[in-house]
């Protein structure tokens, strides 16, 4: 499954509440698309629905209790509803592995797993992540021992500055969990939602393929000048 698509493929993820009900935001989002396709709901009808939805018990704008299941531990925080999952993790839970680099779901540095699906934590509200199992990079190597993929990143130098690394590692962890033997094309496809400005992609691919048990060949040769000096 495509990484960036995982959010659009499963829109229910951010729209469902823990109890399986429908949130106001999710409802209205659904309403918008339904209204367009069916072309039966008038603008006035939408406004009425909005009003009704807003009459539901509103949360905020002050802090509300938010319970998150992070790396197997449930923790409750007092957060304004507008606080993103990323900020909740970084500032309130003290888990700074997920990075903020674009704040608009384009670079993947903030990637975490929600029920094993990679998501952009910068573009999900913390209150929407309640009820899901959240895995951050800190949750992968809890005992201090790196996973095979993490070790492959180190061995193959699948990183330079490392700011994108937690995101890539989690994205590829999810890929390898659902498809332990991906092709190179599948690895590239899985990485389309993550950016690396240092240009470590060739080594990130090599790390993923090594973990999948595929042989990777080096495209580097070292030449000695003495063998190649001009005659």
């Amino acid at each position, binding site marked *: 499954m495509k990484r960036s698509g995982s959010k659009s493929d499963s829109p229910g993820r951010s729209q469902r509440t823990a109890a399986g009900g429908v949130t106001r935001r999710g409802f209205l989002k659904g309403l918008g698309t339904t209204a367009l396709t069916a072309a039966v709901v008038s603008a006035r009808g939408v406004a009425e629905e909005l009003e009704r939805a807003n009459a539901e018990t509103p949360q905020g704008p002050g802090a509300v209790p938010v319970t998150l299941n992070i790396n197997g531990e449930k923790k409750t925080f007092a957060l304004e509803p507008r606080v993103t999952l990323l900020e909740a993790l970084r500032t309130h839970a003290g888990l700074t592995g997920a990075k903020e680099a674009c704040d608009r779901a384009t670079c993947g540095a903030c990637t975490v797993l929600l029920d094993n699906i990679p998501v952009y934590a910068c573009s999900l509200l913390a209150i929407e992540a309640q009820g899901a199992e959240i895995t951050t990079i800190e949750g992968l190597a809890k005992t201090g021992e790196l996973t095979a993929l993490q070790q492959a990143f180190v061995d193959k130098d699948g990183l330079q500055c490392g700011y994108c*690394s937690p995101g890539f590692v989690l994205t590829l962890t999810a890929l390898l969990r659902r498809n332990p033997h991906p092709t190179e094309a599948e690895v590239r496809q899985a990485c389309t939602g993550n950016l690396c400005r240092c240009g470590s992609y060739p080594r990130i691919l090599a790390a993923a393929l090594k973990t999948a048990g595929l042989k990777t060949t080096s495209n580097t040769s070292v*030449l000695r000048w003495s063998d190649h000096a001009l005659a």
Partner: protein
Amino acid sequence: MGKATPRLDGPAKVSGRAKYTSDVAPAGTLYGAILRSKWPAARVRSINVDKARTAPGIRAAIAVPGEFTVHFYGQELAAVAGVTRQAALDALSLIEVDASPLPFVVNELDAIQPDAPRVVPERPNLLPAETEKAGDVDAAFASAAAVVEDVFATQVEIHNPLEPQGDVVAPEGDEFTAWCSTQGIFDSRNDVANILGVPQNKVRVICEHMGGGFGSKIESWGNRGLCAWLAKTAGAPVKLILTRFEQALSVGNRPSSFQKIKLGADASGKLTAFEMTLFGTGGPVVDPSDPGGGVIFVPAPYIYPAPNTRVRKSKLAVNAGRGTWMRAPGHPPASVGMEGILDELAVKLGMDPVEIRVRNDPHEIRRREYQIGAEKFGWKDKYRQPGASPGPVKSGVGCAGSGWMSGGEGTQAEVQVNPDGTVEVRCGTQDLGTGSRTVVAVVAAEMLGLDAAQITVRVGDTRLPPSGLSGGSATTASVGPAIYDACEKTLAELKKLSGIDDPRGAHWREACGKIGPNPLVVPGRWREGLSTGGAGGVQFAEVEVDTDTGFVKVRRMLCVQDCGAVVNKLTCESQLNGGIIMGLGYALYEQRVMDPQTGVVLNPNFETYKLPGAADVPEIELLLLDMPERGIIGVGEPATVPTAAAIANAVANAIGVRMTSLPITPDKVLAALGKLPAGAGTGAKDSVLQQAFARVAQAPATPATPFFTGRRGRAYA
């Protein structure tokens, strides 16, 4: 040395344990936010932050004092610090700015018009032309066997390191600790001390891990000063990290270039005459001596000399964020122009592009690299006449070279040997992601006969012995020799103290056991003879161009790089890969787009400012030319220089039409192929360009500014 050593901080980085500036949060940290100008040009009379200062959760609110002029959209006006990020963002809307908007101009070809709004009222937007001359150009063109002429344009590129600019500044009594994302901890320390008006020994800068810089984190930008002032005002730690949006506005970029080049040669292809008229923008250029990221530091002619030259280069002011150093400043644009015109000359003379380069290149190593590269690439089989590729998807090949000064300079370091044999090496350099921390360990391990993993390395703290800023690909060549020196002296001391003739390797523990209860600390410093400059490299590109969609796909890149003494093969390769991939973005995707109507940056984020992704990366083959006898040289910048030129040449070879404007986007390709209506496509009109060059030709002349005057400048070849 020369082996593949995994980077020491790899495990910390892949497990999220590595703490970057944005991850640091001392107890009681406040969150800073900046109010930026919504006008591309304005006169600000006053800024009132009173309401913001008393807003809920706000602990400090400051404004740029007095009356001043705004020169670009996004210029810093005021800043607040609050207990949460939300409180800070809310308070920004309470700041009152009394200002009058002014006329503005953001695009080069508008700004160069005589009636354009003036960015600095006192003078024209086009600055005097720096002029260089040699020989008799006109006579040489008149007698040349072949003359070619063309216009090349390169875009404004944004560094966009994944970690945004930012700082955490914490006051403690009369001292300040600043966690800065910086390419030079000591420069940043001096800047923070200067801004706060405190002695330098009262400021400590820490940069344990850094999320990339590419030149944008050499200077301290406005946000650092605001963060330090907020911390001082609030008397509490303040974290101020820029957003991606802000990153596109006011923390530098690679300046644009417009180059009109004329090249002449004799019948054998030997260059006889070169003429260039160049202008480009490095931003508002408020101070006429502002290099603006090296607008006019475009070496000309680039790497292939001609005996007769005439060069005029002008900076052009626009109302947009300032240019600054970016990975090999001046060289990628120089390469795009020179390598492009050289290919046109080769076509005109019926010569092979590799042959014409070898004939004109004075750099012995690079000449050989062209030959090695051509052989490994299969150049002879792949090169066809331009446009000869059949079918709608056409393939083509191109090549280009680079020259970079590299070289090292003054760095100090110290080695601490403990009685139990453990070693700590301390050096106040910083690791931008280049692997300099690992380089320290590799050199020390080699010298002391230990494993790199046995050595603890401390970098990124101004309490350590000083090193210079990381720029010019100078870090490895600056740090390596200092570590070498410190280790050599350590061995001599240890020999004296222990009585063991060769305390390295197997005798290490025994020797260390004899130094007594206190550790042995030995300083060392950079010295001549262990590093060198003048790094040459060449790259070959193979592309496919879909002539129906205009889409360019790079299939393969081959790089032969003069690496001097390879210190760490693994990180050396990563730097080369990274340089090539960044060059690919420069060739095909990246460009800051300004809106002439509103003066704003239209693409200040990654969905509209396109960076190369995993799917765009071609097969990359690296040939490292290892020459330990040359000493250490840096390769971070050289690798990004020739990529775009090689790709542009390959595109021209594929479709038979030269794309002279970067980035080579599908609309430009289709326009060049005549598949779009006249006037379509984003390339500039020829008549407008010619008018612009005429203005540069008429601009007052001034002597050229030297790029670097120091030792490293002389090492440039």
